[in-house]
């Protein structure tokens, strides 16, 4: 804003507002025309279907959902399933990515080569291919559900996934009162918490894939710390680990927040690939809804709005964080 008087600022604001208004008018005109065409062809439209019973089941998730409940709740269950996959995947990506990024600069040749190979391999194969490979590996290699293996008491592994004892809350209580143990039934293992192969495949595929990109960002961040800082640390008598922990990483990790934010955003959006392996996340639920109602326009609009909101929330949150941690004078 420097070099502009209050009048110049006013003019620039007016221009911005006019542009936004023009854009919104354009979108509204397009939507109105689309609706007119849809009506002209006898295609039902509108969001009223969200209140009607969905009529399909959602195989897994944290939100208890059954077919008699309305579509909006199905979308909510899908969104929660998206987060249920994206959050642990992001944790894997950040932790593993940081370690790999450091490892790529390690003085030890073997460590350095392993990290380099990991990054190159994972970064250059499409995520969908990795996801399908992981999923087929899980469902081909694990034993059939009827021949599930017991790893520990109450822990079963099979093609139906990993079943664990899980705390359950009795009616009217807030805190869990007992554990539900998985049990063998006629076909498979049921009860407790089950991590299905679909869920494991999407969490690990997303996490391992994104880790490769995070690793590159971390490496760039470390390399951007001036060599003088390392020399200074050495002069203070710090060993290599201390140099990294006390001097280099605190400076490097602050720098990379915006770039890593982009990776987290990409990870959340990439979770939509889970439909390929049958994990019921937001896009999968929207697809099913689209097909049972024919409201393609509306279902896609909901998906777009939800991803937009998620992205803005993540970007907003990390921007706040970035503003706090960024080095003064570096902005």
């Amino acid at each position, binding site marked *: 804003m420097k070099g502009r008087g209050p009048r110049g600022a006013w003019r620039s604001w007016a221009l911005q507002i006019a542009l936004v208004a023009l854009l919104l008018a354009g979108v509204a005109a*397009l939507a109105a025309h689309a609706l007119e*065409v849809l009506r002209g062809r006898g295609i039902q439209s509108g969001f009223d279907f969200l209140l009607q019973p969905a009529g399909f089941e959602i*195989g897994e998730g944290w939100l208890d959902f059954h077919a008699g409940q309305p579509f909006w709740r199905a979308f909510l269950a899908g969104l929660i399933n998206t987060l249920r996959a994206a959050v642990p995947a992001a944790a894997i990506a950040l932790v593993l990515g940081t370690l790999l990024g450091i490892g790529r600069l390690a003085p030890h040749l073997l460590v350095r080569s392993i990290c380099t190979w990991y990054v190159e391999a994972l970064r250059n194969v499409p995520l969908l291919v990795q996801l399908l490979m992981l999923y087929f590996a899980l469902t081909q290699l694990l034993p059939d559900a009827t021949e599930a293996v017991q790893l520990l008491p109450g822990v079963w592994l099979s093609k139906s996934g990993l079943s664990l004892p899980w705390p359950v809350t009795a009616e009217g209580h807030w805190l869990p009162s007992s554990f539900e143990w998985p049990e063998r039934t*006629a076909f*498979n293992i049921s009860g407790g918490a089950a991590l299905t192969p679909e869920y494991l495949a999407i969490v690990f595929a997303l996490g391992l894939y994104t880790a490769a990109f995070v690793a590159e960002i971390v490496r760039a961040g470390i390399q951007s710390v001036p060599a003088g800082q390392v020399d200074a640390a050495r002069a203070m008598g710090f060993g290599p680990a201390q140099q990294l922990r006390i001097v280099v990483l605190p400076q490097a990790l602050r720098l990379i927040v915006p770039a890593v934010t982009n990776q987290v955003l990409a990870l959340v959006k990439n979770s939509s690939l889970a439909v390929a392996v049958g994990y*019921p996340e937001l896009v999968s639920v929207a*697809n099913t809804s689209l*097909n049972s*109602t024919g409201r393609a326009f509306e279902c896609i609009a909901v998906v777009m709005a939800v991803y937009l909101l998620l992205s803005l929330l993540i970007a907003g949150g990390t921007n706040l964080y970035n503003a706090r941690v960024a080095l003064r004078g570096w902005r």
Partner: protein
Amino acid sequence: MQSTTSRRLASLAAFAALACSAVPAFAGKTLDAVKQRGTLNCGVTNGVAGFSAPDSQGNWSGLDVDTCRAVAAAVLGDPKKVNFVPLNAQQRFAALQAGEIDMLARNTTWTLSRDASLGLEFTTITYYDGQGFLVPKKLKVTSAKQLKGAEICTQSGTTNEKNVSDYFRAQNIKVKTVVFENFEASFKAFFSGRCQVFTTDASTLAGLRNKEAKNPDDYVILPDLISKEPFAPVVRRGDDEWFTIVKWVPHALIEAEELGVTQAGVDAAKSGSQDPAVQRLLGSSEDMGKLLGLDKDWAYRAVKAVGNYGEVFERNVGPKSVLQLPRGLNNLWNKGGLVYALPVR
């Protein structure tokens, strides 16, 4: 396998096309467009044995494919002038709405909500099916009622997905569905052992068991059919002339079977038959084709191209096919089935 992204782009493109195209649709527009183009764009499945599947040379065959060919023969005079457009369950209606295809012949179940809300019109039932269950024999299941706690693989966006949930809710049996966007992924997951049960229309189950299972005898199709699945070709609303044509071509094939006119015998019947019904159908007396906006040989060419309904059934899904399905409900009305030609007169 198509990527999810490209599929999503395709559906977005369909909406864009829908949004940008002009509204007015006058009768006969589709027929004119098909004639001018010289090929019929026919939406089919991307591979369901017996209904529509390409062979290694890219030749399509199946009951739905023959419906497309019969329409092309009636309208364009040549059953080869069909451009088969493979569509998955999610794409099929949008493709028809947006005008990418002229008709959809893709084992699609005729339901009220689809009929009334999609701006589409179902023409005539070409196959009566029902939804069934495929299970490994070693589980020793003999009825769907024993499936408590089982995991069931199926495809999203189909009537199958909803029927399963309705059926087991009504029976008060808890099952778990694993739903795939892609049909191939859904049955591959089942045959790899991910699910203990696979569900879709019984005719498709038969095809899958014979084509995809390492040993077909390891699997059984349960006797329970949990739904009615009448398959019918679909066209866009608002083009009555085209709707009437796509409705009457299958009726002509059924009428031919009722009258005993076969693919091999159609020429002799056309020139020699004294039966007024045969003469009317094949255009050797009255000109029924004119009423449809076609010529009088329309039904003759359709039968000559694919045979009568019984021959189409036998070749694609019946005794002469790998599916070996019994005629059942798809037999003629006077032989214990539900197939009944509206009178061609």
